[in-house]
């Protein structure tokens, strides 16, 4: 995929995104002239070998890191022009995150973790919506427990719910199943799928696992900082196949 034509359907998109680390001899082009958009209400995976730039792309699009050149947008807001305070507000209101680990504050209960972004923003949660989300997480009476009393799958489901709590325009996931076994991984991914289907949530996830990618609606393939391919409605096999021939 190259040029972005219409941006109206995109929860987030970037144009000519380039990210270069280091200088001279040690220069690394993590991203090179990438233009891509993520449609609202879809679940997108970004795949690629180690060092392909998939994490960099996600971090830049989420406003965690800045581009060397090019622009990234969340909704219609261009990120490079934002100050720290505005970026913080954007993350608070428009973006959700799911990390591989360290997702939850160990000292807060599961429920407190879910409402954390809203509490940080100082807004009162939409009770109806929160109830719906929490019901979907399906923790039941374990909501009052601390993260270390929950299973790995439960912890990540709490993390997804937390990401959804502020009804963000887009949720970014950084290998959300990287730290768990395959059964737990399936549990988490199904939950993410549910979030997209039931709540119309937009999710972008970085992963290196074809099985994980098969839960999404669309897969982008990155190699050496450039988007080399993409696939709609992937299956584990087709993704695996594509990955094998990625370098070719």
């Amino acid at each position, binding site marked *: 995929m190259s040029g972005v034509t219409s941006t109206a359907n995109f929860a987030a998109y970037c144009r000519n995104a380039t990210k270069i680390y280091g200088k001279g001899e040690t220069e690394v082009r993590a991203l090179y002239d990438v233009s891509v958009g993520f449609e609202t209400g879809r679940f997108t995976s970004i795949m690629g070998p180690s060092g392909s730039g998939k*994490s960099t792309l996600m*971090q830049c699009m*989420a406003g*965690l*890191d800045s581009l060397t050149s090019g622009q990234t947008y969340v909704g219609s807001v261009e990120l490079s022009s934002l100050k*720290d*305070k505005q970026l*913080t*507000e954007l*993350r*608070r*209101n428009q973006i*959700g*995150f799911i*990390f*591989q*680990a*360290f*997702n939850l*504050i*160990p*000292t*807060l209960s599961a429920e*407190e973790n879910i409402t*954390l*972004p809203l*509490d*940080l*923003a100082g807004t009162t949660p939409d009770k109806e919506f929160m109830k719906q989300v929490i019901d979907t997480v399906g923790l039941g009476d374990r909501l009052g427990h601390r993260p270390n009393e929950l299973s790995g799958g439960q912890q990540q489901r709490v993390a997804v719910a*937390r*990401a959804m709590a*502020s009804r963000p325009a887009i949720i970014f996931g*950084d290998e959300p199943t990287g730290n768990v076994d395959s059964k737990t991984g399936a549990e988490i991914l199904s939950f993410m799928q549910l979030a997209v289907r039931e709540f119309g949530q937009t999710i972008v996830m970085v992963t290196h696992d074809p099985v994980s990618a098969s839960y999404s609606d669309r897969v982008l393939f990155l190699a050496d900082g450039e988007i080399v391919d993409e696939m709609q409605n992937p299956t584990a096999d087709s993704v695996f196949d594509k990955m094998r021939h990625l370098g070719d």
Partner: protein
Amino acid sequence: MIITKLSLRGIRNNLGRLALTVLAITLGVGFVSGSFIISDSLGKVFDSIVERANQNLDARVQPITDDSFGQTPGTIPESLLDDILALDEVAQVDGFVAYEGANGFIGLDVDGEPQTPGGPPILTFSWNGPSEEGGGFELVDGSAPSGENSVAINVEQAEALGVGVGEEVTFQTPTGLKVFSVDGIVSFTAGGAWFTLFDLPTGQQQFDKVGLLDAMEIQAAPGVLPSAVLSAIEPLLPEGVEVIDQAQASAEDSEDFNQVISILGNILLGFALVALFVSLFIIYNTFAILVSQRIQQIGMLRAIGAGRGQIRNTIFIEAILVGVIGSVLGIVCGVGVAELIKALFESQGGFPETGTVISLRTVIVALIVGIVATLVSALLPAFKAGKISPVEAIRNEGVQPGNGRVRVLVGALITAVGLFAVGYGLTGAAGLSGTLTLLGAGAVFTFVGVALLSGLFAGLAVQALGRSGPVGLLGTISGVLLLVGGVALLVGGLVALVFGTGITGEITVPGQDGAEDQVFTPPSGAGQVVTIIFGAMFGALGAMFLFSGPRALADGFRLLVHSFRGGAETKMARIARENAARSPQRTAATATALMIGLALVTLVSVLGQSLKTSLTDVLDNSIGADLFVSTEFGEPLPDDFAAALLELEGIGAVSEYRSIPIRLGGPDGDVLRADSFTASTGESVLTYNLSEGSFDGLSDGTAVVVTTSLADDRGLRVGQTLDVEFEDGVTEQLAIAGIIANENFTNGTMLMDNSLLLQHDDDAPIESIGATISAGADIAATTDAAKNLGSNYPSVQVFNNDDLQQELESGINGLLVLINGLLGLALVVAFFGVVNTIVLSVLERTREIGLLRAVGMTRGQLMSTIRWEAIMVSLFGALLGIALGILFGIAGVRAIPDTVIDQVAIPWTTLAVIVVMSGLIGVLAAYLPARRAAKLNPLDAIATL
């Protein structure tokens, strides 16, 4: 809301990690509030004593004690007493006289040994209360003194002399030995002072004040208002005498006490603030470490929308809470500190019964001080936490915060300001007190600045220190000392413990060489509990020493051997070195806490050593005198002593020294001090080193010599004439015969002959006497004869040069011990700081420790690694402290006038002790954290994230 919740939960989760921080605040605040409590408690006691002493008094007549020139605190003619008593408004008048000075009357016990309370003075008054009630004194046995052979003494003195009511005691008095009958025993506690009381006529006679009174206490006739008494008395008063009412009398009396109390309080407060200052660095370190340990969590919070301010606030709220907890505990601890100080004074002889006064001010100040200190220390870590980027949530490794350029810049700036203050102070432009203030402020700035900067070189320094053999030597020495000390403490502690339980009964130690047997009786009651507790504590401490000593010794020795053979260091030392160098900022802050305490110890030692050397120099070079005569409390010497001394065989020249205020340059001139000596002996007794002129004309009372300072100040030259007004109002025109270069022996600005001074003030006190021994005379015999002569007079002391030097040195040493003891608190806080850092570092490296253990490091090796790290950090702190201490010591010597200290001397032994102490601190600080680390299960440790 959520921020507070996060902070609260953060504290709850890190309770163990914050414990030592709380302890640091508690100790600092405890000492601060302790010094307030002790001064408040004392103040209240003295207020109530004064109130009690003055309760029956409606008015007091006293000389106007205006210190300004021309109004000598005179005495009141006794005739005034009858005039006042004749007034209708007055019911009773009591006259009062006191002996000016202390220890004028010293009782001899049955063996003829003079008995004194040691440090505090013996005060001698007339019995001033109406018949049976001495004002403020409580008669516990016998009756008030009455008649010329009658005396009342206080309980403690009676005990020391071994006498009861009705028995006779021989006293040394200013007029020779005299026998008095002890008719009364009184109780009155005032800081361990003793009292000897006569009736009024006897007092007047003994104090050479016949026909005179020092004060009168007046009771109004029934129904007469005190104000009426005052106005009735007013017209009767001669010049220089005033009458005041009860309130004013109490206020004046309290003022003297309160001054002493506030000085004591301020000294304690000063040391408390030093300890608090040290704890700032520990608090800083804890928060910095907590932040770096939570870096991913903070990154995650930032990623999901927490603003910088919110992150900062979580740290601030934690700091406030820790500050509140530490301060509240500190106030409680302050009560303990106050009790401890009281107990200390009590053991030194007498401390008034005091309640414990905890005023609102104490609580408020303690809370503010504790919380502000914690907040200030948490400032940098909080801002650093705010700057953590959201990306940290995704990175797997916590990044080591580098040495921020801002920090280095600010550090350099603050250091520069500090050094500038020191440098500017040394120009002397601000006067002596200004200079010392500048030096103090400069030192504080330099400490902070160096603390910020030292992160720059902490890594390199630790690498360099750790690589060398000397660390091995330090470890070896520490090990040996811990072994020896451990045995001593353990044995001593166990003996005390067993003895304290009382199962041994009395223990009799046979006296050596005919000395009396010593009998030790087991304590009972509170003493027993204290003995047992202290026994157990020392025993435990000894055990800890014994546990860590041998290992430190073995490790140190191994490292020493390694470096002797020119081989590489041991692996343990190497890992320790790298660990200490890995977070230079943390190593620096830990070392800084230790640095401050040790720098102050060094500073004080350098000043003390320089003072000793300077004094020795003066004694050797500028003093011709072989003998010195002075009194213990600076009271005047007997008038006939110099003459008596001259009559002794072998005495050459004798010179008397006096000092009085004069007004220079007529009625509007400045009041200055002038000294006098026996001009006929010239410089044979003390060497003044005239830079110009001579002593010509001094003996006839027509000339003076002036100090270089005065000459420089006023542009005076030899040959000029000065207008000098004396206290009797006479102005003399005196020629300047010479200029004194050596101002060591002058209190004042000029020196004249005794005869001239006595012309204008015939009872100016003799402050000291110097005498030389003639060439060829038997020095030992002459010295003994002079000392014998002195022992006939109370409180007269005769020194030879050696005595004087010893006296001066023991005085200085005593002061050094006291100051260093108080600085010990700062070192204790710093010690906990080292423990704190090591504990937190071990926690942070749990995974790594597991890995090292998994690949085959033994428990002992692991403990060795941690111990070396602590030793290296402590040694770094000690060396920094010594460097800064010497710097400030030299600056201090420069700032103090040359007449007091004129040369710098470095106390090398003390510095060596400080270095060894840093080794001990390191070994002991590492003990508990190292044990804890060694107990970790390697697999669990690796699994820790």
